Structure formats: structure tokens, C-alpha cells
């Protein structure tokens, strides 16, 4: 690069990089610093306590519970979202009947794409408020109301959704209901992502497979999925981040923000309680840093496992 160009580029980059360092990286470093203190958050008194806060994490029952709830989401959110998104993308792109124009999606696929993508346009809090009405635990809730009309649910015993800590497959019911919302709101975006990736797969690959007598099942598992491997892997990492967060849904929807009785407690809700209710910012920062480290390790591991040679076509 010629000297003048370098200066020109640097001139443009200095400001954004500076802003990024100041507003993003610096607070991160500050949080890491606070995590080594007993700062309460409301005064300038703080004492250095070394790694005490981190050691405390390991004996904190609530954090352990929250951790397993996050692990539940970490497994289920990517699994169900990607499965649903792949299924929808396959139907919309190559699932329809073939004709003279070759392979295409099911009838009306353009419209479906818009509909499925729609939740992505809404803020997560808006989605949570909307689902509060859908999940409302009396006859005025959308689901309860309909089920009561057709007599599947008794008026005296509505489905309680967010208020139901009873375990289903060993996991509190409230987490499964939250999972449904997360998958519903996320699937549209990944459907579009997978659609784009599928469209870059040459049609003649499919046509050749069909000529050889492959059905939809085989074309999907033998051709589509292997060729989408990179995209799926990236989606898995993104969804992993979402699963480790889940804060907005838990905060807006569950009773006592993590209830009933800690049944939907997650890392972020415990962190919020510790910092802002208990006034232990130092300990809360340690939780945040621990979560960040865990997230980074997970992403690195994920990308390493799925890394392999790229297929060019």
C-alpha cells in the first residue's frame, strides 16, 4: 500500500476504532477489574478481593441452577431452531414439485418467506409482551381461551404456562414454553440464511440426484445438509449466544423475573438480581466475566469441531 493511502485509511478508521475501544472494550475491561473487588455499585468504596468472587461462583446454588437452565437452552434452542429453519428452507427452495423450470419450492413460497421472517422484525420485548397475551393464564388468554371454547381445557384449571414449574422431561415446564417462543422468533431469520445458502447450490446437482432416483429425504440428507455445513455451523454459534442470553424473555415474562420460585432462573437474571437488588456489583461482574469466558470457549470449540475443507462449486 502506498504511504498516502495508509494515512487516508487510518484517518477514516481512527474515529470508529476509538469509539469502539472507549465504549465497548473499555467497559469490558472495567467490568473485569470490578470483578476483583467487593464494589457495591452505589459508592466509590471498593476493596480488592482477588479471585474471591470467582471462587464464590462455584459454591453458589442459584448460579448452578441458572447454569443448567442455560445449558438446557444451549442444547435445545440451536437444535430446534436450526431443524425448523432447515425444514422450512428446504420446502421453500427445493421441496416443491419439479417442472420444466427445474427444481423449485412449494406453492406460494415467496409469501411464506415473508411470514416466517416477520418475528425477526419485532424487538424481543415486543415479542415477549405479545406472548404474554397468548400465554395469559386465564380464559382471556389466546391459547387458554380457544382451548376452553372447544372444551379441551376446563375453566377452573387453565394451562398456567409461565407459572408452571412442574418438570417435563426433567426440565421445568416454564422453560419449555420459553423455548417455544425463542424457536418461533428465531427460525425465520435462519430460514432466510439457509435459503440463501441453498440457492447457491447448483440446481444440476439436485437434478442429477433426482435422475438417479433420489427422493426428497435423500436429496436433503445426502446433498443439501452436507453442502450447508458451514452455514449451519455459524448459525449454531449465533444461536448459542442467544441461548446463553435469553434475558429479555425471562425478565419480561416470568413471575419474579426468574420464577416461579427460581424455576426459570438463568445466568443473566441472577446477575441482574445480584447487582441491582443485592448491591454486589463486584460479584455480579465476576458472573458476567465468567459467562463471557464460557461463551468464547464454547464458540471456539464449536468452530474447531466443525472446521473442515470447503467444497467449491
Amino acid at each position, binding site marked *: 500500500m502506498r504511504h498516502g493511502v495508509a494515512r487516508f485509511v487510518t484517518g477514516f478508521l481512527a474515529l470508529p476504532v476509538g469509539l469502539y475501544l472507549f465504549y465497548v472494550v473499555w467497559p469490558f475491561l472495567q467490568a473485569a477489574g470490578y470483578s476483583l473487588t467487593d464494589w457495591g455499585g452505589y459508592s466509590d468504596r471498593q476493596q480488592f478481593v482477588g479471585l474471591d468472587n470467582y471462587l464464590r461462583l462455584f459454591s453458589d446454588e442459584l448460579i448452578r441452577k441458572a447454569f443448567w437452565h442455560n445449558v438446557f437452552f444451549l442444547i435445545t434452542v440451536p437444535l430446534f431452531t436450526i431443524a425448523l429453519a432447515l425444514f422450512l428452507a428446504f420446502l421453500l427452495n427445493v421441496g416443491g414439485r419439479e417442472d420444466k423450470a427445474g427444481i423449485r419450492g412449494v406453492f406460494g413460497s415467496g409469501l411464506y418467506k415473508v411470514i416466517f421472517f416477520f418475528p425477526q422484525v419485532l424487538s424481543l420485548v415486543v415479542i415477549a409482551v405479545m406472548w404474554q397475551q397468548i400465554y395469559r393464564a386465564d380464559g382471556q388468554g389466546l391459547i387458554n381461551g380457544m382451548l376452553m371454547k372447544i372444551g379441551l381445557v376446563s375453566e377452573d384449571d387453565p394451562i398456567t404456562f409461565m407459572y408452571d414449574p412442574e418438570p417435563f422431561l426433567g426440565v421445568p415446564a416454564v422453560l419449555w414454553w420459553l423455548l417455544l417462543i425463542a424457536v418461533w422468533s428465531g427460525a425465520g431469520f435462519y430460514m432466510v440464511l439457509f435459503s440463501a445458502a441453498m440457492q447457491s447450490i447448483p440446481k444440476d446437482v439436485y437434478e442429477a440426484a433426482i435422475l438417479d432416483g433420489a427422493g426428497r429425504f435423500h436429496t436433503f440428507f445426502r446433498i443439501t445438509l452436507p453442502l450447508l455445513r458451514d452455514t449451519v455451523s455459524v448459525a449454531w454459534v449465533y444461536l448459542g449466544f442467544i441461548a446463553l442470553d435469553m434475558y429479555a424473555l425471562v425478565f419480561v415474562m416470568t413471575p419474579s423475573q426468574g420464577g416461579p420460585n427460581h424455576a426459570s432462573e438463568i445466568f443473566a437474571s441472577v446477575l441482574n*438480581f445480584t447487582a441491582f437488588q443485592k448491591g454486589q456489583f463486584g460479584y455480579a461482574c465476576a458472573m458476567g466475566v465468567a459467562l463471557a469466558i464460557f461463551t468464547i470457549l464454547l464458540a471456539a470449540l464449536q468452530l474447531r469441531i466443525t472446521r473442515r475443507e470447503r467444497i467449491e462449486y
Partner: protein
Amino acid sequence: MSVTPDLDRRTLLRRAAAAGLLVTPAAGLLSACAGSTPDQNNDSAGEKSNDNPFGVQDGSAVKVVIFNGGLGDAWAKEDQAIFNAKYPNVTVNMSSTQKIKTEEQPKMATQPSDVVMNSGADMMDISTLVNEGAIEPLDDLLAAPAWEGGGTVADSLLPGTVGDGTYQGKFFVVNVAYTVWGNWYNSVLFDKEGWTPPKTFDDFFALAPKIKAKGMAPYVYDAVHGYYPRWALMATVWKSAGKQAVIDIDNLKENAWRAEGVLPALEAWEKLVKDKLLLPGKLDHTQSQQAWLDGKAAFIQVGTWLKNEMAETIPPGFEMKISDYWGLGATDKAPNDVYAGAGEGIVVPAKAPNKAAAKEFLRAVLSKAGSAKFAELTKSLASTKGSGDNVQDAALASANELMKNASSDLISIKLWNFYADLDKESQNLSAELMAGRLTAAQFVDKMQAAADKVAKDSSITKQTRDA
């Protein structure tokens, strides 16, 4: 700021001064960046007198932040007018918000506002503020003469107001609204059906079948916020087991939850749930209040802000009245104690730049004129005596009536203000008990375990109450 001479900073300040800039904010900013700033108070500058007990300085400014929630902020503007009538040269910068913690917490350690109304869902935890030394003790405000004269500020307050604002022996929080809690009913309906509001759980269990026969649920509660049913549970505990039992509970005394009378009080609630006297479904506070207004349930328990909160949807022909929480009957140790107290707390940050004016502003808030406007505008009593005397309102009148027949002791529970952990646990367990997933005995066991855990935890600052 360290005493070591710092040439650069000095030069900077001198230049700033020379340039005609205000030195004070600049110095404030500079001192804010260090972790060890001794308090530089220029409060003493104004002259103190009986009429100006804190020495408010002419020409100074005071920043007031009001919580704009169920009570609105119109009343505070009246207080501002009262204050400015006396101090026309003191600027009151008033703003109102619902995000108290979000906006004020980050400023507490450096440049806080002078007066902060710490209320609502987004409030700063009081015990943390006290423990961190982030707010100013206001005992001198209590000792100061009342705004209109005739005794001290403390003399002019309703019982419980001073106690409710006292932490670790010092008065920190000026609670401006006086709230009475109890069971609400529609007096028009009760008169028509010939029902009398119960005094004890036995009365209620006797009345419940008649209510059910009318196709109505006897009781509805807020299933989202655990602190709603907790008021009622703890009121029954107080009535049944007496004041000392609750004081012991608040003080984390050993086996305090196993004191005589605590378990039977909770068993009454367990029976209410087991007998299916609750409206089916899980509703939040406004949904449950609306269900009650819609005639789906006969009783709901909440504080006197109810009328203001639901003002827009009260159906015609509905007259809400409050009655006392139910006791257990003959065995009750404190059957006539009413759950009432001062809420909506205002605090003065320890680092507030103009504390004198902040305290003087609070004196104006607690004035007779200011509190009368408060009652008129909010339909709630203010914590200054006699605020509601000239307000015509049936709900307010029933609360007044309840207070008149009350014994001198008010039900007041400190547990949840003392310890954030016990606040969370007691909310969760109250919700579990009301959901029928917990028996009264389990509730007692779990609360005792949680209290023991806090008592043993050396990282938690302990608080006590005597009365």
C-alpha cells in the same frame, strides 16, 4: 483529591477561571475521576435561622427527581411552588421519570441529584444505599420546625412515618405517601346481597359458599408479584402471633418463624387455597384488580393506591371500600393492628451538592399546604397529619375509618427492606403457597432456613429493629 500539588491541573483550573468558565463543575468533574474524594461541602455558606433551619443559600440551585408512577408528578409541582414562594432566588430543577435506578444509580458515586424519589419497580435497594453510605441521614430534618410552625417536622407526621424511614438507628427516607392495606370489596354488591365483610378467616370461610353460589370466586390475588400476597400473609402472621414475633423474624432470631401463632396464620391461607376459593388462573396486579372490578371475585387485597390505579375502568355502580385484613379470631395476639405505613420514599444522596436546599425542599413537601395538595391530587393520604381532611372520596373515607378504629401499633414488616435475599425468598415462597405447591409448614421451614442462612452469612450487613 490528593494534597500533592499538581501543576497541570492547577494551571488548567486557573485558565478555566480566567476564561470566565465556571470552575466549580470543572473541579467537580476532576474530583469525580479519583476514587478518594473528601466531601467538599459549602452548605454552611447560607445563614441558618429558625425560618431557614438548614441555611439555604440564595442563588443556589437544587435538582429534584420525582418518580412519575401511580401518583403522578403534579403534586410535586405544587411543592415546588410552595418552596419558591419562600425562596424565589433558589432555582428548582425538577424532572420526573419512572426509571429511577437506571438514571440515578450511575450518578450516586459522583454527581447525584439533590433530592431523589426512590420508588417504583426500578428503585434503588434501600439497604444497599444505607450500607454503602450513599444517602444522607435526615435526623436534622425531623428536628427542624415544621414549615407552618407549631412543633417540629417529626411532630407533624403520621405514626409509623419516622419508623418506616429509619435504618440502623438513623432516619434516611422521607416516605411521602401514607398507605393503608387491607381487603377491598364492592360495598354496593355487599349491601345488596346482605353480606358483611368478614373480620376473621372463620367469617370468610362461612361467607365463601354464599359468594360461590352467586357464581363468583371469593378471592383473587396477584400471581406475578410475590410481594402482593406476601403483604396479606405477613399481616395475618402479625395479627395471629403478635408484634414481638414479627420483630424477632425481622431480627433473624433463632427459630423466630416457629413462634406460636405463625404456623396457624399461614395454615388459614393454605386452607383458602386448598378449598379452591381463588379465582382460577394466574393474573398480574392490574389483571386481578380488573377481574375484581368485573365482579369475578369478591375480595382482593392491596393498598390504598388501588382507586387511583384503576380509576379509568371502575364500572358505574361500583363502590370500593377497604376492610381490615382477617385474623384468626380469639387466639389473635394483635387483632386490631392495621397494616399501614408511609411509602414512596424520598432520599438525599450523601454526595448531593446542595443538601441544605434539598432538606428545605423536603420540609416544603411535608408542609400542611403541600400534603393537602398531595391528598387532593392523588386521592391518597400524605404522611403529614390531616392531609385528607378536606377530600371527599368513599375509598379514602373507608381507609380513614379503618385507621380510626386501629390500635396504636401499626403492622410493619422490615424483613424485605433489610435483606434482598429474604425479600426474594419470601416473595417466591408466598407465590408458591398461593399456588398450592407449598404447605404452611413447608413455608415456615423454608423461611427459617433462608433466615438462618442470611444470619450466618458474614458478607451481609445485619440490621435490627426495636419496635
